[in-house]
């Protein structure tokens, strides 16, 4: 039975760690968003490459930590 | 009452759909009433959305699914009687049969429309259809046949076959599976209603600005196409999850039957690329109904955008059609030539390369559309590139036939015809991939002949092979072999005689999608029309054989073809749980002629009703 729970939630962190992770990720996303705004307002032509550099890791962080992408293959045997 | 009871879910669904339509259209008239815009098309669009939801709830989504959302216990509507074919049954065999029957009917209807077109084209000038009516008939023929080509294999055969071929008891998401089928009837109803709303003259490609103008029939067509795309996406999702997770113990990736691989690849395309056509159609509808400016250059739009988005789906879509057809082809060839699938691993690799390359060839449909010139060469190169993996699959088919002991039953004859037809279709494709020749041949009957050789000669013939091949498994009865062979020769000869001359009419300048042509082509077109009716009549024999055999045909044994794959190791038709005991896969599916080789151990203790299946595992 214990094993089964392990399989459903692969490498389940402690609840405190999970909460902390959520806050860190959220903080990073906020920082990303504000940097984006600054870039978007200040650098009027040519913001696109910089924005891509910010957005891709930002979206990646959500997909990786919030949506648990690694669990897709991590949960498999 | 007893007459009504089998159809009570359909009746409930129609009632709910009516209610949904009223709610949706009232909502739309409220919105448009506030802004003072014309209300007809918004009412149709929102009313349809309401009707679709009502229809689905009524047919059984409520009982099987939605009860769960509010905390009630869901009810199953599966039953061991023919009544379940008219409600939300989640049995993949029922759904597969529903798909097959529906789309054979659609095939016949669309074929009838083709006959109407041929009558009009028998002589130059306008015979009995107005231009608008000709366009409507042509467009309906197009979109219905596209639906047949996309959904018959991946909806019908894949649904019925894939869980059996991989030794599972159902698909991964049975309810989504049922949903993907029950989305289809509203599509059919919408398309059949289009003539009442003025028809539509865009062809199945729905290019703006024509599709943003014109009668409301166009809107119905756009809605139908969009809904059909949803069904296709859900089907693709389901098969991917099924194939990844539900293979029988021991069935590693390299032991999967080739048909399953082909469905996997087609499902990848239909899962992803279909969203593009959904987006494109949504944009057309927004332009049309709300007055946005995606494709209207007066409003900052660009009509060429649609062609890019549309073909980003619709070119990969031809591989949704043809890849599973190749799967059936190799499957049937292997079983009836009593030889393994030649170069199995290369074929699988080729299928995946086709999936990848199919996403970067779309603009070869745009050579004459005003796309920047520098894009011509890259897309010409990628298009030619995709013929390499296709050629590998073709060589694999030849490799199976080579020195095999061919058992020329009806399915095998159809499979051999696929090889022949696709060769012609493939070679003529080169002229359309190359920019210099394509600029001359674009929008002529050369194109018509080419894609009828690939899609009809390749895929519809493969569908026929599949129907005859799995007929005993699906119905539990054997079709009439003599009628089957007669149907084959009848259809094969008349098909070639119909479409081969179109290459010449095309080269001589006959335009597609036009009701008229120049007088010098009159004789050839009269011949084509005459033979096309011979071909149309061959389908009557097919339908007669299918219907009469399902009633009076001899009872089929579990494995009439002595084939090795798993679906033949259970009774015909299979029990509801497919296998009385879960099969254990221990060897390759195609090792014909290898002594003592066994594909799967299916415990006979389960006692299938049509006799034991052991011994059938052995090669011929």
């Amino acid at each position, binding site marked *: 039975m214990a094993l089964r729970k392990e399989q459903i*939630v692969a490498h389940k962190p402690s609840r405190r760690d999970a*909460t902390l992770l959520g806050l860190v990720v959220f903080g990073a996303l906020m920082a990303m968003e504000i940097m984006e705004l600054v870039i978007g307002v200040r650098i*009027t032509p040519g*913001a696109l490459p910089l924005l891509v550099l910010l957005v891709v890791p930002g979206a990646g962080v*959500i*997909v990786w930590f919030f949506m648990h992408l690694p669990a897709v293959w991590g949960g498999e045997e | 009452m007893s007459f009504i009871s089998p159809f009570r879910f359909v009746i409930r669904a129609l009632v709910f759909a009516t209610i949904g339509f009223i709610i949706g259209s009232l909502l739309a008239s409220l919105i448009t009433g506030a802004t003072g815009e014309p209300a007809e098309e918004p009412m149709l669009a929102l009313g349809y959305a309401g009707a679709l939801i009502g229809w689905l709830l009524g047919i059984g989504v409520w009982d099987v699914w939605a009860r769960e959302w509010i905390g009630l216990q869901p009810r199953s509507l599966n039953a061991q009687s023919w009544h379940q074919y008219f409600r939300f049954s989640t049995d993949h065999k029922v759904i597969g049969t529903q798909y097959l029957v529906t789309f054979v009917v659609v095939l016949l209807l669309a074929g009838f429309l083709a006959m109407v077109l041929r009558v009009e084209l028998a002589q130059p000038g306008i015979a009995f259809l107005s231009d608008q009516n000709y366009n409507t008939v042509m467009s309906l023929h197009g979109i219905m046949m596209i639906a047949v080509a996309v959904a018959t294999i991946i909806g019908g055969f894949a649904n019925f076959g894939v869980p059996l071929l991989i030794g599972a008891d159902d698909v991964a998401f049975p309810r989504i599976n049922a949903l993907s089928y029950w989305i289809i009837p509203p599509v059919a109803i919408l398309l059949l209603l289009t003539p009442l709303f003025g028809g539509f003259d865009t062809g199945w490609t729905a290019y703006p600005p024509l599709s943003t103008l014109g009668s409301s029939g166009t809107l119905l067509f756009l809605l139908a196409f969009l809904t059909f795309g949803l069904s296709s996406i859900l089907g693709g*999702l389901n098969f991917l999850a099924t194939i990844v997770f539900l293979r029988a113990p021991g069935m590693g990736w390299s032991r999967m039957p080739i048909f399953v691989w082909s469905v996997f690849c087609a499902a990848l395309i239909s899962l992803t690329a279909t969203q593009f056509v959904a987006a494109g159609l949504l944009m057309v509808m927004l332009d049309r109904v709300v007055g*946005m400016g995606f494709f209207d250059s007066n409003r900052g739009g660009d009509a060429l955008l649609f062609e890019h988005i549309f073909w980003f789906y619709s070119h990969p879509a031809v591989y949704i059609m043809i890849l599973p057809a190749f799967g059936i082809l190799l499957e049937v060839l292997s079983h009836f030539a009593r030889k393994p699938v030649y170069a199995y691993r290369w074929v699988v690799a080729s299928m995946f390369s086709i999936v990848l390359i199919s996403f970067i060839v779309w603009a070869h449909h745009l050579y004459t559309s005003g796309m920047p010139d520098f894009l011509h060469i890259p897309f010409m190169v990628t298009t030619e590139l995709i013929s390499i993996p296709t050629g590998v699959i073709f060589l694999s088919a030849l490799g199976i036939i080579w020195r095999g002991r061919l058992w020329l039953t009806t399915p095998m004859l159809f499979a051999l015809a696929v090889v022949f037809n696709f060769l012609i279709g493939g070679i003529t494709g080169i002229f359309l991939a190359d920019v210099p020749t394509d600029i001359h041949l674009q929008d002529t009957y050369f194109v018509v002949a080419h894609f009828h050789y690939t899609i009809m000669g390749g895929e519809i013939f493969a569908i026929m092979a599949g129907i005859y091949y799995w007929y005993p498994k699906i119905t539990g009865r054997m079709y009439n072999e003599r009628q089957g062979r007669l149907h084959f020769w009848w259809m094969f000869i008349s098909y070639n005689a119909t479409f081969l001359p179109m290459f010449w009419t095309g080269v001589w300048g006959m335009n597609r999608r036009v009701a008229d042509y120049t007088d010098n082509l009159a004789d050839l077109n009269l011949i084509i029309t005459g033979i096309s009716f011979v071909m149309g009549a061959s389908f009557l024999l097919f339908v007669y054989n299918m219907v009469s055999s399902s009633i009076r045909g001899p009872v089929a044994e579990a494995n009439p073809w002595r084939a090795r794959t798993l679906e033949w190791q259970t009774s015909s038709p299979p029990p509801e749980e497919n296998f009385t*005991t879960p099969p254990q896969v221990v060897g390759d599916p195609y090792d014909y002629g290898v002594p003592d080789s066994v594909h799967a151990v299916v415990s006979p203790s389960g006692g299938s009703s049509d006799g034991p299946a052991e011994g059938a595992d052995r090669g011929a």
Partner: protein
Amino acid sequence: MTTEHAVEHGIHSPEMRVKINRIGLWLFILSDAFFFVALISSRFYLHGTYRPDDLNQALGLGVSIVLLLSSLTVYRAEVAASYGDRAATQRNILFTIGLGLLFAVGVGYEWYEAFSHFPPSTGFGTIFFTLTGVHATHVFSGLIVLGFLWWLNRRGKYSSEETYWPVEGAAKYWHFVDVAWVLIYPTLYLVS
């Protein structure tokens, strides 16, 4: 014997069911992402990096932060559900619904402003209203799902670790809606 074995460890076991559902949801998200890709590429195809001057940048940043915050709360709801903490799950689902509604109100106000600056019949307005509208449709469907979750969680449906998959699934979908906005926001507001 064999059948029992199959139910215990095969495709009908609870953990296998969760795995299948998880992959199914990921495939759905992958598919849906293509829809957004099509719309976002249309923006660049039609208008390059053109940006009108009368976009409300403060409001754009505001709704973005609200949506990111809702991602945090739905993440916390998921964590709470995975520990069987019903009260915390309930609370965080409610927070998420509230933030989602706030986001919708923000977008609604933007629409109201945008109607006067670049109505949907103009070039940029077409893209703006379509992208935000399609995204808002996703937000609304997510809110409906969260509403059902709230109702069912109140009745104790997701109280144990084995049964909380619907919370995980809804959270994933909600995060995906957030990811879509992370891409849409610079596409509409910041690119120039």
